[in-house]
């Protein structure tokens, strides 16, 4: 289906079929749950944060191709990164998803890399929630790590 090519790009389907960092981390890793009440998707993000760095990350749960691929790409992008950089990437991603305005807070040099492939989701507003589910759950996890 040609019309859906910009939504279901090959890199997205690859992450959906072969998710990266799928699984769980044992305590004391932080476990944060997120859900999309509209469609019943549920996700858990496990974070090992030390010295201001996301040393390891996993995700589990179930959801559509967009939510699963987005979570997979997210974990690949943030693993080993300083928390401040992770937040900047998350901010840039949410700006791309048009749910956060570009307030100039995120450094201009933040690169989304493969994650750019999710740009096509914006044309399908109902799916934006699927794409950001993992990211919001990650941010909630980082907040609880700080607390």
């Amino acid at each position, binding site marked *: *289906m040609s*019309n*859906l090519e910009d*939504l*279901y790009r090959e890199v997205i*389907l690859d992450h959906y079929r072969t998710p990266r960092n799928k699984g769980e981390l044992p305590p004391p890793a932080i476990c944060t749950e997120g859900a999309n009440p*509209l*469609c*019943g*998707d*549920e996700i858990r993000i496990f974070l090992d944060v030390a010295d201001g760095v996301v040393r390891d990350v996993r995700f589990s749960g*179930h*959801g*559509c*191709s*967009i939510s*699963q691929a987005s979570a997979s790409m997210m974990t690949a992008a943030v693993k080993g990164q300083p928390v401040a950089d992770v937040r900047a990437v998350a901010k840039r991603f949410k700006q791309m998803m048009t749910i956060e305005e570009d307030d100039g807070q995120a450094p201009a040099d933040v690169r989304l890399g493969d994650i750019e492939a999710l740009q096509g989701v914006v044309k*399908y507003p109902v*799916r934006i929630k*699927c794409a950001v589910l993992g990211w919001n759950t990650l941010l909630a996890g980082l907040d609880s790590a700080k607390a």
Partner: protein
Amino acid sequence: MTLDVAAIRREFPLLCRRVADKPIHYLDSANTSHKPESVINAMSTFMRESYSPIGRSSYSLASEASDSYEAARTKVARFINARTSREVVFTRNATESLNLAAQSWGRANLTRGDVVVLTHMEHHSNIVPWQMLAKEKGVEIRWVPLTKDFQLDLAPLEQLLRGAKAFAFTSMSNVLGTINPTRELCAAAHAAGAIAIVDGCQSVPHMATDVQQWDADMLAFSSHKMCGPTGVGVFWARENLLDSMPPFLGGGGMISEVRLDNFTCAELPHKFEAGTPPIVEVIGLGAAVDFLERVGMSEVRRHEIELTNYAYHALTARYGDDITIHGPVNPEVRGATFSFAFRGVHPHDVSQVLDQHNVYVRAGHHCAKPLMRLIGANATARASMYLYSNEADVDALVEALDDVSSIF
């Protein structure tokens, strides 16, 4: 005479719409139905020519509007075979009707340790109002389980109902399509000394309803699933129950007298209709009842049995084990609502691909999360049909599903 689907479809302007220059296949009628020209015109004409407050002002136009409003009530009463139109209360939707049952009857009649029986088939509207009451009053909720063939398991029913004060159940599952034996269930409730509360959201639009034949005590349903507008629902209950129940919402319209230190309630059914009601929508619902009665509810049911047969065989013949339909096989005990899993593809992705073919299905938990957990699905795609659905809609679904495989 069998139902002339082509003629019926011509009465629904939206079904004639094309998207991306292709016809649309609306398969989400369990969610909400489309509206025939007669309903749209009745509401439009009423607003243009007769609109006025009802039950308040004494000028002739207001009196005419009140008569139209009450005439719609009479139509609804006849449609469900109520003994009198005093038993028909207009609410905002079926959800509000079920909340009315729980908050008015439930709070007045249930105390700590009392039992309300529900079923695993219920959607959130017939679960959460009772859970709210359970939390407040310490009421126990018991659940009637399902059989492997997606029916209610009646074997433990008598035991579950023992000591129960109310049995609230759906007459047709919005997920499985299962049609429940409402009359038997009402009898079982009464044998245990419980009242029978029927959630008719899914069955009332699709087959004849007879509250007297059922021997039910209360019934809730919505206008928008039966060709009427949104914004109005129906709460029906036996007159003696309505008489004994305290008012639900307070305000204008539901009183006969208000003093600084007290108030007295209006006569039935106005006692339960506080504030200005959805006047135009009630007129629309009356027109929807006229429309459905003109077609004939037994014809609607017969058409949907035929379509269920056609869809079941078309889907399973083409896809075999690649499609799992969560619901009974026998079309006599089910409505034309198909929840399904397809080749392990997530329902959101299924519905996204179907959308490209103008095939509109719902993906998700269908506001019945406990049931979804029981059938082992976090979400399903659901294709649901109505009197205007035809074999072309089914064929389009079957064809479009093939495209799902080409992507996933």
